């Protein structure tokens, strides 16, 4: 197995190319995610962070450039189920029980009923929802629904997890609990994770590296390493945490180290 989980080189994504309403959503993006690494993509709306995630997931194709996941082209990685994905909306199917929602990816892979059931229960155990296996999604709170979605994304045991603002619609307390939960799951499973977020503390708390992006055209302006060791609730109040938060905030304002280009654009943000 290679050490590189995701490799993005020279990715451009241009909508309506050649038309008056042309938009450059991604401009010449290079990014490498190591195996087992937790990366956050952060930036204001329209910076292309979700688009970048969708290119990696092969939900949309790049205009130019290429992305590889687990050493293979993104399209192949999608076909081989080399990643799991979770969105801001839990996107659960109301007509299925919680357990059968988690089983969905396994069903598409042709797993037998018994194996599916065992695996789904295992995952629900992990996200601490085993007691709700036979409930319907609408009977669950937003945070619980999101945990089901995470369990579903882990179903086929992919090496990579792609998450598009999965906690964006949750209240602050639930959100922090979910962050701890996610880190615990990551600890248990050793997944590589790419996590799109709007929240600076969330990005810093979760990530090994925070990728800072800026809009028009969407591009990476900074990559900030976060070395806070293993996270506990105390981490959120540690000095190193605040320093990292400040560093990301500065980078978002275009005043971070190594973003000379961004520095001249302060007025725009």
């Amino acid at each position: 197995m290679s050490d590189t989980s995701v490799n993005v080189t020279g990715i451009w994504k241009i909508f309506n190319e050649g038309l008056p309403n042309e938009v450059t959503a991604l401009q010449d993006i290079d990014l490498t995610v190591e195996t087992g690494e937790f990366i956050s993509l952060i930036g204001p709306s329209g910076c292309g962070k979700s688009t970048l995630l969708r290119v990696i997931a092969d939900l949309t194709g790049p205009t130019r450039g290429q992305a590889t996941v687990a050493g293979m082209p993104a399209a192949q990685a999608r076909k081989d189920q080399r990643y799991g994905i979770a969105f801001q909306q839990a996107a659960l199917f109301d007509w299925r029980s919680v357990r059968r929602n988690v089983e969905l990816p396994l069903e598409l892979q042709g797993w037998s009923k018994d194996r599916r059931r065992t695996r789904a229960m295992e995952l629900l155990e992990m996200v601490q929802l085993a007691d709700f296996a036979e409930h319907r999604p609408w009977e669950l709170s937003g945070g619980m629904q999101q945990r089901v979605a995470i369990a579903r994304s882990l179903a086929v045991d992919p090496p990579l997890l792609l998450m598009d603002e999965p906690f964006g619609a949750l209240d602050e307390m639930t959100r922090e609990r979910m962050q701890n939960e996610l880190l615990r799951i990551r600890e248990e499973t050793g997944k590589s994770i790419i996590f799109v977020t709007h929240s600076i503390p969330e990005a810093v708390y979760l990530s090994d590296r925070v990728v800072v992006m800026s809009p028009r055209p969407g591009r990476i302006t900074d990559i900030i390493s976060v070395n806070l060791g293993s996270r506990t609730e105390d981490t959120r109040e540690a000095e190193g945490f605040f320093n990292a938060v400040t560093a990301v905030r500065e980078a978002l304002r275009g005043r971070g180290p190594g973003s000379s280009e961004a520095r001249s654009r302060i007025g725009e943000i």
Partner: protein
Amino acid sequence: MAHRLRAIWPPILIAVIFLGSWQLLVFVQNIQPYLLPAPSLIFTNFFSDVSLMWAAAFYTGTTAFLGLMFGTLFGLVLALFAQRLAIVNNLVTPLAAGLAAVPIIALTPILNNMFNITSRTPRVLVTMIIVFFPVFVNVTRGLIQVIPVQLELMRSMNAKPSTVLRLLRIPNAIPFFFTALKIAAPLSVIAALVSEYFGGPQEGLGSRIASAAANTAYGRAWAYVVASIITGLLFYLVVLAVERWAAPWTGQSRSA
């Protein structure tokens, strides 16, 4: 149970008040039956001829049921075809509006000429056409209007279009389907009944209402109207019961 009772008594109370004031109005104002018969007269007629009522309701109900079945089937099959065509996406709503304006019931005399007027066929056809439209339009909408993120999820799992149809689009369309049926079921009874006004066999509710009125038997005419209402309501309630059983997630807050 107490909860159930609380939900039931207001409509019953309103019905009692309504019928009571109707009776009172007819009595006090001495209104003639050809203008407005009293509820007591209608119910006397209803219960004295209850077997006739039942037979007429059964005849019209059968027409309605056949039309409902075939119309629904036809609507479902066409909706499955339609969702494959991208162009339909933008057409469904204007189509629905346009088709709602077609006076389908007025086609009955033409269909009576085209098919055997002494048979049930033209009536079933009219009912079928009327049922078809709400089913087709709603189910197509349900198949097409899937939450985009659910489609992305299916794509991320490399699902084939036929799998997306089976696991996502069809279940998604089920609440739409029942919405259509709740409109179509009582409508099918009305269509079957009105189509009897254009000649043909005289056993149905529509024929009975017409002939009773023509014979100045207003109490009986209204009794058949009551039988029609009961038939339509029965159709509606059956659909409601099937919906509760088949699609319990309908009307729940979407968790998507």
